[in-house]
């Protein structure tokens, strides 16, 4: 299930769906390992190809290059891509995860965000943990200038925390869950500062193959229902597919909220509006205008609104 063949030309053909699966999108893991979408696509005469995304940035890269039609990213990443000109629309919300928080070591004397003044904090610039960090600092009346942010990849951030090279770490699951298993503590959590899991589609895919897009959203709806009903099996799939320890997988699962309204809308826009100015200030996006345009155009509600798990249940359950 790897490799989408040649990029640009291939991905635009109407009879096929190329989409990603990612460890931060448990529903995609379930759908892929169960082979559900293949069955659904078969019913409408289309074919399916899966591509692994190592992170939101990878998914965006694939979307941009046209090698996938549908990709999963954090909301912030989707906004960033759209604001920088990538023609994508969010068609479904796959989860409201609490995948990032602020982490400290057990022997640390940091108790609250206010204690972070002057501290050095590891974070990966431009990712959800980084945005969470900035929003959290704001709640305590601090800004990025009051701390020293060490730009490290997520896994390296944890090592830096554990070896005492930084005072705190803006962590990301599943590494954060593993760190917790190892004794580290989450000292600041805020579900609302996480930016949701966005399922994005390329605009040209939506115009050329709306049937395919519907099939994907419907299958996600089916998978959501199934996952809520079969937690144990779902956790096992997550652990195996993501290559993480069962205990870690369980923790991640608990923080991934699936019983939400999958229709993208105001909740998502609200949190993204917090992030927009940060993107502009850091130079990741060249103007606020771009951000505003993106916020105004990124949502495509119709697919999720029309989502119907029963439309695909027949094809999936084989009767």
């Amino acid at each position, binding site marked *: 299930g790897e490799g989408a063949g040649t990029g640009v030309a*291939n991905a635009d053909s109407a009879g096929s769906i190329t989409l990603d699966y990612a460890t931060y999108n448990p529903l995609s893991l379930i759908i892929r390992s169960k082979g559900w979408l293949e069955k659904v696509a078969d019913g409408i005469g289309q074919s399916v190809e899966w591509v692994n995304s190592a992170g939101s940035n990878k998914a965006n890269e694939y979307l941009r290059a046209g090698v996938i039609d549908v990709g999963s990213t954090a909301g912030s990443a989707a906004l960033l891509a759209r604001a920088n000109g990538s023609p994508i629309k969010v068609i479904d919300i796959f989860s409201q995860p609490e995948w990032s928080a602020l982490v400290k070591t057990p022997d640390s004397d940091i108790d609250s965000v206010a204690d972070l003044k002057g501290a050095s904090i590891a974070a990966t610039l431009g990712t959800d943990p980084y945005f969470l960090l900035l929003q959290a600092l704001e709640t305590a009346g601090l800004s990025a200038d009051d701390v020293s942010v060490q730009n490290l990849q997520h896994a390296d951030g944890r090592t830096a925390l554990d070896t005492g090279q930084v005072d705190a770490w803006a962590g990301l699951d599943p590494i954060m869950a593993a760190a917790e298993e190892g004794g580290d503590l989450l000292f600041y959590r805020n579900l609302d500062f996480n930016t949701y899991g966005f399922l994005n589609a390329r605009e040209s895919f939506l115009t050329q193959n709306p049937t395919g897009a519907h099939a994907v959203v419907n299958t996600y709806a089916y998978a959501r229902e199934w996952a809520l009903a079969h937690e144990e099996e779902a956790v096992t799939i997550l652990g195996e597919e993501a290559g993480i320890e069962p205990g870690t997988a369980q923790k991640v699962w608990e923080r991934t909220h699936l019983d939400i309204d999958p229709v993208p809308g105001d909740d998502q826009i609200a949190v993204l509006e917090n992030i927009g100015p940060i993107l502009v200030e850091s130079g990741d996006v060249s103007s606020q205008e771009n951000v505003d345009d993106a916020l105004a155009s990124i949502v495509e509600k119709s697919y999720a609104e029309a989502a119907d798990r029963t439309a695909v249940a027949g094809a999936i359950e084989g009767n």
Partner: protein
Amino acid sequence: MPETPAPVRSRGSLLRAVARNKWLAGALGLALPVLILLLWHTLSSNGTFSPVQLPAPSTVLAAGVELAQRGDLWFNVAISVQRVVLGFLIGSTLGMVLGALIGLSRWASVLAGPTIGAIRAVPSLAWVPLLMLWIGIGENSKVTLVAIGAFFPVYTTVSAALKHVDRQLIEAARSFGITGLQLFFQVQLPAVLPSVISGLRLALAQAWLFLVAAELLGAAMGLGFLLTESQGNGRTDRLLLAILLLAILGKLSDALVGVFERWAARRWGAAPAA
């Protein structure tokens, strides 16, 4: 005319035994790795580093066994080896051809030399988005990226070495009507053989290095994928496993170049300086 020169001081008999017996040499070559392993074991078990920072060798082994039992390990290894082999063959062949062209033709050198030199400095990671645009994320783009990695060392060493082949030999050969491709294959190539081989060595190593970047191109299998994935989800044991496997495979493939080198040394004898 010279035979192997006598040593200045007479050497230890063990060294002489080593020179004769390649198994003994191999065993001695293992001494250092074993030492490193012991150090690693000590550092990871006496608390200098925590298990996430540096898991014990046994943990890494266990991770390997687990992956092997799921059947993933061999597939990971096989697909990576395939990519490296294909990419290496393509890249080093092209490197040889272009290196020869640039090393021998002043026109080619003036026109294309600077550009190739600039492209050499494009990092492997930077190729990823470009190749994705041009070739997509299939097997082709991965092999291409590995080939790019393998290309430059061969290209650089061959083109440089060709400029320094003993003029007297070339003159002699040309005066006997050996020109063009014949000159290349009969005189210039044998003369630069040591350089070609060290170029191939580096190319192979760089092919493995570029593999990791290549497997960012939408891979779901392969050692590079295992490496980045484990790095992404914090499985330090698997990360180390991937590094170890890459090192071992790199060394094994390098040993194959060594076999070729010895064959060439026999075939071309006192392959001359170049």
